[in-house]
């Protein structure tokens, strides 16, 4: 069969582009246009008309305001001694390297500047010093701020004890020139630092109950296993924390407190400022052995003195 048509032209091959239906658009132009458009849109959005700034996180702060934020963290630490909370807040700042040493470096910079020209600035820097010194770090602020002004001053007691004239003897001796010479005795009493952890997590157990689903039951006891009411307990999770006290449910015991977890979240529990945080307690799924109903894992945590 001839491939020449009636006009005598040679017919194209069946796979030729001349036999395929034509696209309504040019694929090359579309690809080129998209590249140009996306690049132009990104340039405009990132450089010409940036989104209005809001919801800034602390790590995005400028140096001066980041220093103020750090001062805020350490000021609260000097009040509540909650090391976990302070460190968690420092982590949000994404400080380079060791965050506690970064506090020491920040204190050093502030102590070298006019920031400490007023007493408020000095207090802020001292709070930083207290914070990092208790964690075994050092910085130039230690020397830049006079040691006499550091948070734990020594208590100086001065007592003068005059030397008395000796009693007369039978043997005459040349009359010495005797004068009372006061001796100054200095006793420096330095307050001891309160231990960082009074309590330890003595026991933590899991259980699964449809009635008590996802509960952390906390007990704080003394050396003899007797409950301690009114002890502040803090539960931390990724986006917050809650502080409450033991003994608010006397029917469960004076040492008892509990906390309701949300499914899938991870929590730590501690005696506020007086123990290290527990390991992560995860509100994972489980099945109640008695009822067979699905529930969340619950925990029983007991704190005792170290």
């Amino acid at each position, binding site marked *: 069969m001839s491939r020449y048509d009636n006009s005598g032209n040679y017919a194209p091959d069946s796979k030729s582009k001349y036999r395929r239906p034509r696209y309504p*658009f040019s694929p090359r132009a*579309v690809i080129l246009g998209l590249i140009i458009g996306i690049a132009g849109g990104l340039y405009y959005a990132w450089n010409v008309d940036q989104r209005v700034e809001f919801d800034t996180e602390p790590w995005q702060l400028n140096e001066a*305001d980041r220093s103020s934020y750090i001062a805020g963290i350490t000021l609260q630490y000097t009040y509540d001694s909650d090391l976990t909370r302070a460190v968690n807040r420092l982590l949000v700042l994404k400080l380079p390297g060791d965050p506690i040493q970064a506090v020491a470096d920040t204190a050093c910079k502030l102590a070298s500047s006019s920031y400490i020209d007023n007493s408020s600035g000095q*207090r802020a820097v001292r709070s930083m010093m207290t914070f990092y010194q208790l964690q075994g770090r050092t910085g130039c602020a230690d020397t830049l701020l006079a040691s006499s002004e550091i948070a734990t001053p020594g208590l100086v007691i001065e007592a003068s004890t005059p030397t008395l004239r000796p009693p007369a003897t039978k043997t005459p001796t040349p009359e010495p020139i005797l004068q009372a010479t006061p001796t100054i005795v200095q006793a420096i009493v330095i307050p001891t630092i309160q231990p960082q952890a009074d309590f330890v997590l003595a026991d933590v157990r899991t259980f699964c109950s449809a009635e008590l689903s996802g509960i952390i039951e906390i007990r704080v006891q003394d050396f003899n296993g007797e409950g301690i009411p009114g002890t502040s307990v803090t539960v931390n999770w990724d986006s917050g924390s809650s502080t409450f006290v033991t003994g608010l449910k006397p029917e469960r015991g004076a040492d008892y407190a509990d906390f309701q977890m949300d499914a899938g979240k991870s929590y730590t529990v501690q005696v506020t400022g007086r123990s290290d945080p527990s390991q992560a307690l995860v509100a994972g799924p489980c099945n109640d052995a008695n009822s067979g109903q699905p529930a969340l894992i619950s925990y029983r945590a007991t704190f005792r003195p170290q």
Partner: protein
Amino acid sequence: MIRFLISLIVAIILGGLIGLYMGWVVIPTQYVNSPASSLADRYKDEYTVMVAAGYLKDGDLGGAVDRLRVLGQGNIPAYVQSVTERFISNSRDANDIAYLVALAEGLGRLTPIMQPYAQLHAPGQP
């Protein structure tokens, strides 16, 4: 040629819209060197609580006000009152509320809703 030009123009417009969406919403500019006044509200609240706790530690009301000025609030006492009342209304952490109430009281902004939390902490008495 006309088909090519029309396709190009349509694609540029479409690509531009995609680019703007990505640049403003999906992967917006991440700012650094930002002032504290642009902090997210939750961090502003957190900072205010820290300053309030610092006030309880040292009793330095002027220092607390100076520290809060970085948040760019015109009226610091009114701001502290507002934060405190919001914390109370939202049943936030009792200690945080007590810190804020102490600061609000120091600033002369103790309102009836704060009364139950007053005197739980006093400045200079940890």
